[in-house]
């Protein structure tokens, strides 16, 4: 009897396993489960007969039947997973969404390239200890030229073709500032009024105007200027600040070079070159084969400027520098033509593709 029952369980197991692997759908699999493991299933029927056996035999048959049950349950469960997976795959294949159609266009705006460069330059100069200071764009001619040691009638005034502003009879002559340097004058004048506060350490970013309009000159452009005044600043500090600035702005490998030059408001004066950022000084079109690119003007504040702003030039000294933002932007962002900056075409402003 026991042997018979065991034999029966074994043959049921073989039979069921075969049916499980033959099942093609979840439904077929379910009916196999009901046929063998359901309440009235074939395995259950065999087990129902156990109650007539003695304890020993019951234990023996029970152990085997549990094994059979668990083997079948595992088989059904793993087959069910496989079937459900392929059924879902088949269902998803019928999906009609065309994934090649474009997504919803999300337009991104961009900051103007001049602003990008201005922001970066301002933050680097902040790191060098120069705080941003601002002055008006319609400026007294006196602040724009005379106080900066441009002598009336001197040819140096021709260095900067100037827009004059219409004023009432007898009013102080006004100009559109030709450079950001009047902010130096304003700083020196206010500091003089405030008990000659020292040190002065500022940067002056802003819009400036010159009466030029051709492919390489715009009647309005941007400059950023630096000024330090104290009792000890030297050409050496000036070099250090500009060296720091250009290495941070372009690349740590960039070198700078000072060349003698002339600006009425500095003495000594220098032109500042950076090593060519395009060719690593091998010589290219941008640096005209020289390996250097002119990027700034600089120098020690002229004693006449101190004097004109109410300071005793024997007691203070300082340096100043200035550079063109458009030029920096062209070098850094590869903008090919100055005029693009002010044309403001969307396809330009949205940026390089």
């Amino acid at each position, binding site marked *: 009897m026991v042997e018979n029952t065991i034999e029966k369980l074994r043959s049921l197991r073989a039979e069921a396993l075969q049916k499980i692997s033959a099942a093609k759908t979840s439904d077929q699999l379910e009916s196999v489960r009901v046929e063998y493991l359901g309440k009235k299933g074939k395995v259950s029927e065999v087990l129902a007969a156990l109650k007539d056996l003695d304890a020993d035999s019951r234990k023996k048959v029970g152990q085997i039947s549990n094994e059979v049950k668990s083997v079948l349950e595992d088989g059904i469960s793993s087959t069910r997973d496989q079937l459900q997976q392929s059924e879902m795959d088949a269902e998803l294949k019928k999906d009609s969404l065309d994934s090649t*159609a474009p997504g919803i266009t*999300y337009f991104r*705006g*961009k*900051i103007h390239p*001049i*602003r990008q460069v201005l922001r970066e330059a301002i933050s680097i100069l*902040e790191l060098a*200890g120069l*705080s*941003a*200071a*601002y002055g*008006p*764009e*319609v*400026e007294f001619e006196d602040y724009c030229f005379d106080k900066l040691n441009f002598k009336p*009638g*001197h*040819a*140096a005034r021709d*260095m900067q073709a100037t*827009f*004059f*502003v*219409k004023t009432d009879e007898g009013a102080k002559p*006004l100009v559109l500032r030709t450079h950001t340097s009047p902010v130096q004058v*304003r*700083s020196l004048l206010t500091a003089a009024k405030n008990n000659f506060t*020292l*040190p*002065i*350490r*500022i940067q002056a970013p802003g*819009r400036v105007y010159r*009466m030029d*309009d051709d492919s390489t000159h*715009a*009647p*309005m452009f941007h400059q950023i200027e630096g000024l*330090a005044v104290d009792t*000890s600043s030297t*050409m050496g500090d000036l*070099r*250090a600040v500009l060296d720091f600035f250009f290495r941070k702005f372009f690349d740590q490998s960039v070198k700078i070079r000072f*060349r*003698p*030059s*002339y600006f009425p408001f500095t*003495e*000594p004066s*220098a032109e500042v070159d950076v090593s060519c950022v395009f060719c690593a000084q091998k010589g290219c079109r941008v640096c005209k084969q020289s390996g250097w690119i002119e990027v700034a003007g600089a120098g*020690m504040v*002229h004693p*006449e400027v101190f004097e004109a702003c109410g300071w005793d030039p024997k007691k203070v000294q300082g340096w100043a520098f200035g550079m063109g933002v458009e030029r920096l932007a062209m070098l850094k962002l590869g903008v090919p033509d100055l005029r693009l900056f*002010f044309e*403001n*075409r*969307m396809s330009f402003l*949205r940026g390089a593709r």
Partner: protein
Amino acid sequence: MKLSYKYFKEQLDFDGSAQDLARVLADLGFPNDGVTHQGEGLDQVVVGKVLTKNKHPQADRLNLLTVDVGSEQLPIVCGAQNMVVGDFVALAPIGAKIPGKDGSGLVMKEAKIRGETSKGMCCSEVELRLSDESDGILLLPKDKANDSTLGKKVSDILNLQDWILDIDVTPNRGDALSYRGLAREVSAKTGVKLKSLATLKWKNPTSGINPTIENLKDASGFAACLVQGVNSKPTPEFWQNFLQKSGARSISNLVDVTNIVLFELGHPIHFFDADKVDPATIQVRRAKAGESVKLLNDQTIKLDPEDLVIADSSGVLSLAGIMGGAESSVSSTTRNILIEAACFNPVLIRATAKRHGLSSESSHRFERGLTPFRLDEVIERAIGLLKELSGFETAAGTKVIDRHLEKKSILYERAKVEAKLGKLAPTDEEIFEMLRRLDYEIQPKGSTAVLGFPWYRTDMSHLEDVMEDIARLLGYENLAKVPLKSFESVSTLKDLSPMHSLSDKILNEFISIGFSEAIHMSFADEKWEKKLGLTTGESVALQNPIHSEKSHLRRTLAGGLLERAQLNANHSEDEIRLVEVGPVFKKTGASLYDESPVSEEFRVGCVWLVQAQDKKRLWSNKADAFYEFKGAIQSVLGQVSLERAETLPTSLFHPNRILNFTSGIAGELHPRLMKLLDLSGRCFIGEWTLQGAERKFKYEQPPQFPSIDLDVSFLVPKTLSVQEMLDCFKKSSSQILEWVRPYDLYESKDLGTQKKSMTFAMRYRDPAKTLTMEEAKQAHDKIVEAAMKTFAKDQIALR
């Protein structure tokens, strides 16, 4: 200034290439705009001799030549006619590369021309780029080309190799606009001595010539020298080349002498025909009212009392320092000349040149400042050159200079110099030695010295000026370098950084919703701003605008933004969305800056042009573009809190589509302006002041208890606005109403022509406990009831 490398070496034995010279000059503060190599690409063109010349059997216009180049005799077919047997020519043999007519390069190949072989080409000056025009081929002068030079390089024979340096001279250095001036600088830097120039002493003083100066403030020196028995002769090729390379051209031997002196020494001089002026009464003076003068360029100008002239008792002879007069100038029949070498006030020269729209090599130098200290040297060089170029019998004259002119000097204090330049390596004596080479006069004084500024400099008065010379001569690169110092930033000017960071903040907000930043120039056309509805008369106007449409400074950003939207539309740009921050200007009113001459205010403005193609997108937003714009700018403006301001006139907008802000205004552009700008689609603009602050947001605990959402739909008359409904809900001031959102607005035939449907979603939440549905419904019903009551007269109904 154009500087020929070859002629520069007449002044100083420079030991280096033209590029080396360019570098030394740049290090001294005289950079260049390029170095041009003359005679470049002529290395393969050789001297040939024409042995035979016959007509081409097939073509009358061509000649068959046999040309001897020393090593061989070449058959050449040539189209020019100007050579005869025995002439020497510039021959480009097979394989030679020459510049060609357009300078793009031409490589010689063996050719058969109408059946005759040609093994090279006889070149013209144009083909060699030696001249802009030529008549036939280049025939080499027989004093340079002969049988012993056959096959030699033409460039060597003619001495064509040269480099022209285009030197930039800063406006403070009138003295350096000359070969001598630049050579002096190079001499000081390199230690190589200047060569001396051929000069002749003049007899001085003398009678009969009596130059005078009306006012020593106008002219500080005037030397006049009478040279008798000059001759008209061709100018030697050497000097013709010198002038051509320096950017002038040879005119006549006498005029050429004046130009040679000008380029060589940098001091302009003038020659009068002495028989046409009265040397006894010659004077520098101001012009008198009513006087006029006919200039060398045949232009007759009416003189101003501010103009400085050279005159004699008979009247004005020339415009001092700028241009000679036509009547008194030298000509081919001139026998006697009066040399004028003077020094004029640069401010007067500049003003006169500007007033009459004249400019010359002479005025260019006087404007930049020259000194009267060495007028003798100028005259003596002129006479030396006259000897060479013309020959003469006698030279005598005299000069007058301002006796009160003093050469300025300054005490040398090494500590002060080092305070600005950093520690210097050379000793004082070494520094003085360098300065002496620049013609500083150095007088020992105690342990230091008094430095007399160089006689030729007009721009020196401080020790800093000397520092620059020291730094230049040592090389800026050799000055001490120090590490970066970091100080606290200090400025005593009004702090505008909060405004600028607000501007950055608001810009970034606009960028995040798809606007791109535009930067426009500050110029505006007042007429255009008037069309935008701005009152006129308040704008800041320019005296000298670059263009009539840029005659004023802008009062709004909107004007430029609209024009730019139009330009972008004309270029078929998509999704035109621009934002700008920047200043606007007004004659009077509050300004950002202290002590500001006019009113300047920062604003932010935007324009959004929705064109037909913008909506042609899959999944396009079907909502009216107005709502898209409104939502966008409200989200941006919600991030900041700006001050009260009026920015644009309401007449700019569609009267029913205006969005009022305390800080500005926005809305849809009036159709009148759409038409004016020829825009199609929908255009939205806005402009706000940038006075204000960023909004301070505080973080909060998120709600802890669940909410209940309830909706309500009303049927309302078309005239009832969403805002009126929202105001009504707000008035009910329910404690648990978290928000209300209109989410469906529609009109349809079914609703009739007078009605529309409005649906609102409402969220209720009790911050302190879990809300029950009953409580929510109670509050909801109360709100709905209040609305029904408020709008009963409008026959509002629930749907």
